[in-house]
């Protein structure tokens, strides 16, 4: 019976040992849930990472037999330029105008292609936040005003939702809250988009807002726990940035 053959050929008789999982990870054949679970363990376990690297080193002997292409010279020059730009933000003076900072951020260059630069910029976070970052149409990176450290990324998707995603652990003092504001060119005053809770992605329904525009300002200010009493930003700005429409 074919049914029986199929059953005996299922996974029941092949337990998922770590080595087997590592091999499947290298082949790229884990499904999404399995892969995320494996990656979560991978970051914690040098032993698993070693298994992965060993499998990879074995398998790469197959692709070593593909006829190699010549890597174009402009590509190495492009890599060098990106490295230069990575060095830049740390060296740039705090007095520099915002626009020149935005222009110098390595993130914008790569976005011209296929949004790939996001993968670079979030090198470490890639595997955990990548699923929510697919195909953004509007994006902004909010940075600390003093040292330009990127702290948050804003992105929208087809879901008519804007998300404010933390890039690192955030500390909110006792009795305070971070309030999220936006102001487009031509608006009289900033509009509150809500309060940020620790460790949470803030989601804002876009149908409550006028269409997002190029260069629209976003910022987070430190306010009372219940939000600004005046309905306008009153506390210090902790992060600020402008939006870019992606084509």
């Amino acid at each position, binding site marked *: 019976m074919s049914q029986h053959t*199929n059953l005996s*050929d*299922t*996974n029941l*008789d*092949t337990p*998922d*040992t770590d*080595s*087997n999982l590592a*091999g*499947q990870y*290298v*082949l*790229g*054949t884990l*499904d999404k849930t399995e892969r995320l679970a494996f990656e979560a363990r991978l970051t914690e376990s*040098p032993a698993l*990472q*070693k298994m*992965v*690297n*060993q*499998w*990879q*080193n*074995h*398998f*790469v*002997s*197959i*692709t*070593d*037999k*593909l006829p*190699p*292409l*010549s*890597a174009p010279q402009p*590509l*190495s020059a492009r*890599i*060098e330029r*990106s*490295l230069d730009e*990575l060095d830049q933000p740390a060296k740039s003076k705090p007095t520099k105008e915002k626009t020149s900072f935005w222009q110098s951020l390595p993130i914008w260059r*790569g976005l011209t*292609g*296929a*949004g*790939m*630069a996001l*993968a*670079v910029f979030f*090198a*470490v976070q*890639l595997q955990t936040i*990548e699923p929510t970052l*697919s*195909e953004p149409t509007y994006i902004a990176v909010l940075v600390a005003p003093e040292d330009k450290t990127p702290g948050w990324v804003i992105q929208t998707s087809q879901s008519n939702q804007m998300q404010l995603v933390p890039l690192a652990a955030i500390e909110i003092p006792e009795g305070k809250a971070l309030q999220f504001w936006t102001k487009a060119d031509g608006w009289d005053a900033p509009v509150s988009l809500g309060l940020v809770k620790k460790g949470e992605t803030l989601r804002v329904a876009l149908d409550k807002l006028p269409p997002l525009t190029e260069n629209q300002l976003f910022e987070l200010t430190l306010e009372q726990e219940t939000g600004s009493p005046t309905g306008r930003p009153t506390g210090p700005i902790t992060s600020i940035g402008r939006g870019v429409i992606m084509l």
Partner: protein
Amino acid sequence: MSPSIFDYETTLKHCAAGNRRALMQLYEQEAPRLLTVVLRILQNRPLAEDVVHDAFIKIWQNAQHYHSDLGSARGWIYTLTRNLALNALKYSNRQILFEPEFLLDLCDNQLQENEHHADEVEALAQDPMAQTSLTNCLNHLEPERKLCVLHAYVDGYTQDEIATLLDKPLGTVKSWIKRSLNALKECLQ
């Protein structure tokens, strides 16, 4: 230079220390092969070049996290790069191609031996296992199972795509791959 002679581990250490020349040496050494691997998966040259660019930036940024306890440095580099390529698949409308002869030829040692260059011979002398052992082990697998593994690794096809391509149930493909890995592991030991 043959991969078994180039010192990937030391190169990564120099990258971690901020030595940019080391990254460019790694580019000279590995970029053609990385581009080949990535292009095979994405089938889109500009996108493949983007991924290789991003891979080198990520290698530069993450080299400090590599240490010898994590095993093969070259494996580390390819894991990082292939993951970027697989993530980039969503930007690529690639075709699923059925090229069994091409894939099986990759495992044909006879064919390879006719094409040895001097440094590869040298490499074989230094490390007789590295060049041939996996292909030898793969050749112990039944052709259809071997193809599953090769389509997954070389082409970056998903198990669904392989099942459709080979006209087999998904569960069968999954099971073949898992069993093939166990057989390969045993053979490699």
